[in-house]
């Protein structure tokens, strides 16, 4: 009786799922303790009100962006800790030495590492930077749907909390970041780990999908007057292309994860080995999302570098039109290459050759972009501030990653390196070199616009150097290991001649951690010295685009007067032609959305729904689902409360600033 009652109330949740290994117990205790410490600090310093009013419920895109970035940096630390665990383990686990962790922990750690880095670091940094910069660059006051934006962020946060909850109870998936069935099916993996993976991604993924719609509409509808598509800053173009990919690809992630969870929850047979199921279908579906996902992440990074190079070379971007053409070409091709992730599944020579050639074709527009960046530098006047140093590291690292990518695009070569450490090195080469360097450059670049002071330049450069050297140490040995026959995801090997390579790689991870440490030190030192680093002009880099036309930190409404755009690099043009100050009559009232806690509410219950599905607590799932529906219905019919900022007030603010 009690047993069934407990099962009814708690599903399969029980104390048996608490971690047992020292390393995992440490995480399980440490995580709630640090959460508790934060809560206590907020309570002690009486900051709850401030946090709630100024941040958590804010619908200001810039603040939502900052929250995205804060969460992503926290998750970067978690993902890096995972990476260090992996490499510390493989540095030792040779022959009779079984390494630091059990196989099960090791497999959970690499699955978590990949999942967290892609979904909660790279995606988080991307959406953060888009929120921070995109509306400003478009000359817009806000995104198209401010409330939806908050919902997206909080769903992302809910997914993040769910994935970290697995550390405390239940453990994580051991099936890798894309969780191929049948390994992740019920038969081989009945526990809650895979469900944590599914539901944290499902919830965060829906948030990303909504963001995709939101930013696409923002770009199509909220551009300043006169800003035609071909006058948009290239970053906005890269975001547009990336968001179209989000809208086309993320539904397929929803489907893949949804069907896998139906297999697991309802005993269906989509991807089981028996009853007619077909695991290959899953692999196709998830990569039909997964490959565009790579470009979803890299394209905005390309956009950031395009802005950075133009700004610091003090020259307009070279070949704007070809850059746009290249972006569109990449968008198109990224959808017809997914099969290259499994040339070795035996699809046949024609299919493999087709997808291989399509994959190589993507290298063409990518190469064009690199040359355009280089010729933006040509006959420029280049300043090497930290964002530009990130750019240099990017070109070096990303180009090499591109080369190994082209190699792997040849099916006959891929047959010899697929799923080896060579592959691991390759995708880190593009993702760290492209995505991570790009987003770190973006943070450095736009930081003054949000906070009103620059980041400490020298520490930023040191961080870039450490990342670059750490990258070489961590991943070049993996290329060699791959060619030696070391496959990915192994927690143990017999050949002692591999060990030096693994040790160097582990040292590389430490150097990357130093790079992250320097980045955080840079933040701390900059806050400390914020008076010296203050950006009084609103235009610290001698920028070209509209975000630099407003004061730093940018006001919540972005623009006191909605700008009229006549040129591609509008702000540069205005500076060159020394336009007059606006008259008082050009100021009008602005309506900004009031804060809303509903986004948090929806995410809390969506998260509870996920938790209920993981632990089979059906009543909770049912209630949480109903509450989410009720909240959405409520929001649909509630008036959207807005707050007026008077024209008078705006005029005086601007006057005070310009004199």
């Amino acid at each position, binding site marked *: 009786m009690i047993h069934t009652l407990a099962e009814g109330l708690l599903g399969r949740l029980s104390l048996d799922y608490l971690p047992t290994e020292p390393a995992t117990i440490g995480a399980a205790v440490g995580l709630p303790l640090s959460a508790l410490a934060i809560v206590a600090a907020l309570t002690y310093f009486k900051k709850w009100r401030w946090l709630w009013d100024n941040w958590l419920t804010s619908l200001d895109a810039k603040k939502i962006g900052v929250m995205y970035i804060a969460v992503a940096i926290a998750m970067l630390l978690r993902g890096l800790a995972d990476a260090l665990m992996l490499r510390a383990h493989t540095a030792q686990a040779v022959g009779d030495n079984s390494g630091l962790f059990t196989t099960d922990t090791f497999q959970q750690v690499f699955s978590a590492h990949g999942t967290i880095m892609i979904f909660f670091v790279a995606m988080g940094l991307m959406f953060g930077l888009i929120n921070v910069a995109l509306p400003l660059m478009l000359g817009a006051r806000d995104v198209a749907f401010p409330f939806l934006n908050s919902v997206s962020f909080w769903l992302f946060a809910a997914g993040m909390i769910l994935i970290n909850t697995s550390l405390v109870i239940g453990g994580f998936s051991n099936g890798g970041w894309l969780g191929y069935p049948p390994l992740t099916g019920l038969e081989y993996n009945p526990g809650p780990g895979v469900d944590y993976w599914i539901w944290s991604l499902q919830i965060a993924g829906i948030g990303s999908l909504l963001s995709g719609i939101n930013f696409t509409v923002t770009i199509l509808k909220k551009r300043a007057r006169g800003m035609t598509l071909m006058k948009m800053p290239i970053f906005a173009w890269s975001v547009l292309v990336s968001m179209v990919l989000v809208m086309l690809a993320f539904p397929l992630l929803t489907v893949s994860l949804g069907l896998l969870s139906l297999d697991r929850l309802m005993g269906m047979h989509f991807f089981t080995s028996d009853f007619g199921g077909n695991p290959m279908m899953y692999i196709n579906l998830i990569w039909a999302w997964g490959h565009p996902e790579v470009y979803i992440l890299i394209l905005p990074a390309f956009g950031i570098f395009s802005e950075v190079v133009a700004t610091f070379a003090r020259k307009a971007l070279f070949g704007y039109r070809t850059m746009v053409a290249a972006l569109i070409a990449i968008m198109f091709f990224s959808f017809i290459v997914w099969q290259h992730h499994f040339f070795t599944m035996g699809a046949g020579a024609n299919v493999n050759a087709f997808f291989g050639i399509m994959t190589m074709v993507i290298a063409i527009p990518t190469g*064009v972009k690199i040359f355009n960046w280089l010729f933006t530098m040509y*006959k420029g006047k280049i300043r090497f501030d930290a964002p530009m140093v990130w750019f240099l590291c990017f070109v070096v690292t990303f180009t090499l990653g591109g080369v190994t990518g082209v190699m792997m695009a040849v099916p006959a*070569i891929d047959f*010899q390196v697929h799923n080896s450490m060579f592959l691991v090195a390759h995708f880190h080469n593009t993702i760290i070199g492209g995505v991570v360097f790009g987003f770190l450059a973006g943070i450095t670049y736009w930081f003054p616009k949000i906070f009103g002071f620059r980041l400490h330049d020298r520490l930023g450069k040191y961080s870039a150097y450490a990342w670059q050297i750490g990258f070489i140490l961590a991943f070049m040995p993996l290329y060699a290991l791959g060619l030696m026959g070391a496959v990915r995801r192994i927690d143990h090997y017999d050949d002692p*001649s591999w060990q030096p390579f693994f040790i160097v790689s582990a040292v590389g991870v430490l150097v990357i951690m130093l790079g992250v440490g320097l980045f955080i030190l840079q933040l701390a030192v900059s806050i400390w010295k914020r008076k010296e680093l203050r950006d009084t002009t609103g235009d610290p880099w001698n920028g070209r685009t509209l975000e630099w036309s407003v004061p730093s930190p940018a006001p919540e409404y972005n623009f006191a007067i909605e700008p009229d755009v006549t040129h591609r690099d509008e702000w540069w043009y205005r500076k060159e032609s020394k336009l007059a100050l606006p008259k008082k009559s050009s100021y009008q009232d602005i309506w900004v959305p009031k804060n809303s806690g509903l986004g948090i509410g929806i995410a809390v219950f969506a998260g509870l729904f996920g938790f209920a599905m993981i632990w089979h607590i059906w009543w909770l799932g049912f209630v949480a689902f109903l509450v989410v529906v009720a909240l959405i219905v409520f929001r649909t019919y509630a008036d959207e409360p807005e707050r007026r900022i008077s024209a008078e007030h705006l005029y005086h603010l601007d006057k005070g600033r310009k004199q």
Partner: protein
Amino acid sequence: MKTRGVLILAVVLAAIGALGWWLLRDATLDVLQPAGNIAEQQRSLLIVASVLSAIVVVPVFTLLIVFSVRYREGNKKAIYDPNLTHDARLEALWWGIPIAIIGVLGVITWQTSHSLDPYKRIASSNETMNIEVVALQWKWLFLYPHQRVATVDKLIIPVDVPVEFSLTSDAPMSAFWIPSLGSQIYTMNGMTSKLNLIATEPGSYRGYNTNINGKGYASMDFMVEAVDKKTFVDWHGELAKSSNGLDWTTYKQLSKPSTLDSPKEYALHNTSLMHAIEMKFMPEHAMNGEIE
């Protein structure tokens, strides 16, 4: 200041180079030291692709360095031309060159996708030999139906004889790879994939599972012995007479999840074992219960 920067860069590069040399000085890179015809062609392909890529990479790195130095803000002698924002001829050049390179590589890709297709039989004066491979949790079972022998975690093949592997899985998806011989292929439940390889040099090589299939995944490596024909014939002739036989009952024991400390050898009593293993996952049999 400037010279110090260059100096530091040179020292870092030299250190990384030295470290690389020290690591690689007597490492065995299986993929680059092939012992079979397929792997050899794949190595050549890897080299061709690297050289073709270098046509783009070398100019990129050169221009990056030259432009960074020449057009730095401090260089007062350099020309500053903010209006140089496009040039149709230049842009045509860097659309054209990559297109040409990818064109060449595309043709090579098309050809090699066919010539090195794992399903394609290898032409040889020797007759192709069949070996059946079953991925288990967590060991490899090799069945030699014609020789009536079977091994676990140890593959013995004759030199210069093309081998056609038929592979399936009685475990989550796994993948079969012998880097010294070339090409890997996935193995899946209820399905047969094929892989054609040949060893041209006698020796021992390592094989691996490259796709995670559970806890014992990392220990799913195995030894491959490429031996001369006589040794091979003697070996299977002797083994086929062994009292240690493999049939459905012993198979069911063997297929339970476990890792092995040392390889096993059997006389193969049931030559349609592979078929039976595949049929385990077929729907009709799933309905009617197990076949014996």
